């Protein structure tokens, strides 16, 4: 069977009988496609035409054999449009894969999550260890607005000048500096003597620790006496017996102070074996 395409002599091609029964289909010999190629050939350069022909041939083999040339041409154009985007997506995928692969290999070297790294939690015992020495750091004392008898702290309405002392085994082992005209007083753990530092260019850290050291034993208590320092004599604001074996390492907030003028009290017990860097860190987080 012969089919004419645009009347050109060289376009007279026999129809492959296999096409009719769908076996070993060769799209290039299909009469409808030949007419399509002929129309393309007239508008595009030969190089481009051959390319179209190749693409269409490979594509037709995978497509529905009932597709019309218009449909095939649409599909071909779609493929031509899509291929560059597939390339660009592949490049992005390569960037991602290379980044992930490198990160997996060197994650112990580069430390992108430094900012979120927390120090490993130290195992902290629930209570102070018996037989161990501890510094008792009275961090904060808050007094009520008035004395227990309802009178103001100082004449003229100024606040109390707070100071405290600590007794252990019936010996006064520490007396603090006073904090003037305040209801809330805080103390630092370390206090350097600047004059001594300048004079000797040395600092004795043990003497710079301005808190008493006590040993924790079963049933041991320390007595904390808090005063309003006055010229005419100190007014006792409250006296508390602190049971050392009930304290926990770290900051202890003691709030129940019946029969005293103490509103709030914070005591921190620090193991005396603390390293110097840990001590400095502790002080810097006051």
């Amino acid at each position: 069977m012969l089919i004419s395409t645009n009347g050109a002599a060289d376009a007279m091609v026999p129809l492959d009988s296999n096409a009719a029964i769908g076996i070993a289909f060769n799209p290039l010999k299909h009469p409808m496609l030949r007419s399509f190629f002929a129309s393309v050939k007239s508008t595009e350069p030969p190089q481009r035409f051959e390319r179209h022909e190749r693409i269409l041939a490979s594509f037709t083999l995978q497509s529905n054999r009932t597709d019309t040339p218009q449909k095939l041409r649409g599909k071909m154009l779609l493929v031509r449009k899509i291929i560059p985007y597939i390339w660009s997506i592949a490049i992005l995928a390569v960037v991602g894969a290379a980044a992930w692969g490198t990160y997996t290999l060197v994650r112990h070297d580069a430390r992108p999550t430094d900012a979120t790294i927390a120090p490993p939690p130290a195992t902290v015992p629930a209570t102070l260890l018996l037989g161990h020495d501890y510094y008792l750091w009275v961090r904060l004392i808050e007094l009520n607005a008035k004395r227990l008898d309802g009178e103001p702290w100082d004449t003229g309405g100024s606040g109390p000048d707070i100071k405290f002392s600590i007794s252990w085994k019936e010996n006064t082992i520490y007396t603090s500096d006073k904090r003037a005209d305040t209801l809330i007083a805080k103390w630092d753990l370390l206090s350097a003597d600047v004059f001594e530092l300048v004079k000797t260019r040395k600092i004795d850290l043990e003497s710079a620790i301005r808190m008493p050291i006590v040993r924790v034993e079963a049933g041991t208590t320390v007595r904390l006496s808090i005063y309003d320092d006055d010229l005419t004599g100190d007014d006792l604001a409250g006296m508390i017996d602190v049971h050392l074996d009930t304290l926990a390492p770290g900051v202890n907030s003691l709030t129940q102070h019946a029969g005293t003028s103490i509103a709030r009290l914070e005591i921190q017990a620090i193991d005396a074996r603390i390293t110097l860097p840990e001590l400095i860190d502790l002080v810097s987080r006051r």
Partner: protein
Amino acid sequence: MNKRLLSIQAMLLIAAILLGAGLTAPAMTIQPAFGKFDTWVKLLQPDAIRPTTYSLLGGIQRLYLLGDIGIATLLFSFSVCFPALKLALLSLATARIAGEESGGWALKFAHQGGKFSMLDVLILAMLVLAVKGLPGGSTIDLRVGVWLFAGSVMLSLAASIVLKGFDHRNL
């Protein structure tokens, strides 16, 4: 595909690998120093004197976590998004030219945008310079990540120039 275009695609592929690796490989190591106080700092704050290594991506993440969202966004855009996008566009343009079309907007954008590609390297160079000016002798050592990143940028620039010439000849 034309052999030359194929070699451009190969260049882009290598540049993509270098970019990915350069973003997450160690890029710089900061070695803090405190001059004559080194011993004291080692004693009191050993963490402060420990060398820290960052990758480009890790550095950006750290900036973000520390609250410098503006600079982190800027660096992320120009150091991560932009180079990756540029490679993708160059690849797209190469495939288009191979299909006997013009590189079009993709090639134009990638070629013009090449000027911004070295921003990250520039920032690192400025950082090195700034740290050298600090008292105490702190140093920043540039590591393989920077060279991988710079290699990727150079390759993509070369590919862009070659492709641009190819595009002009084809049109």
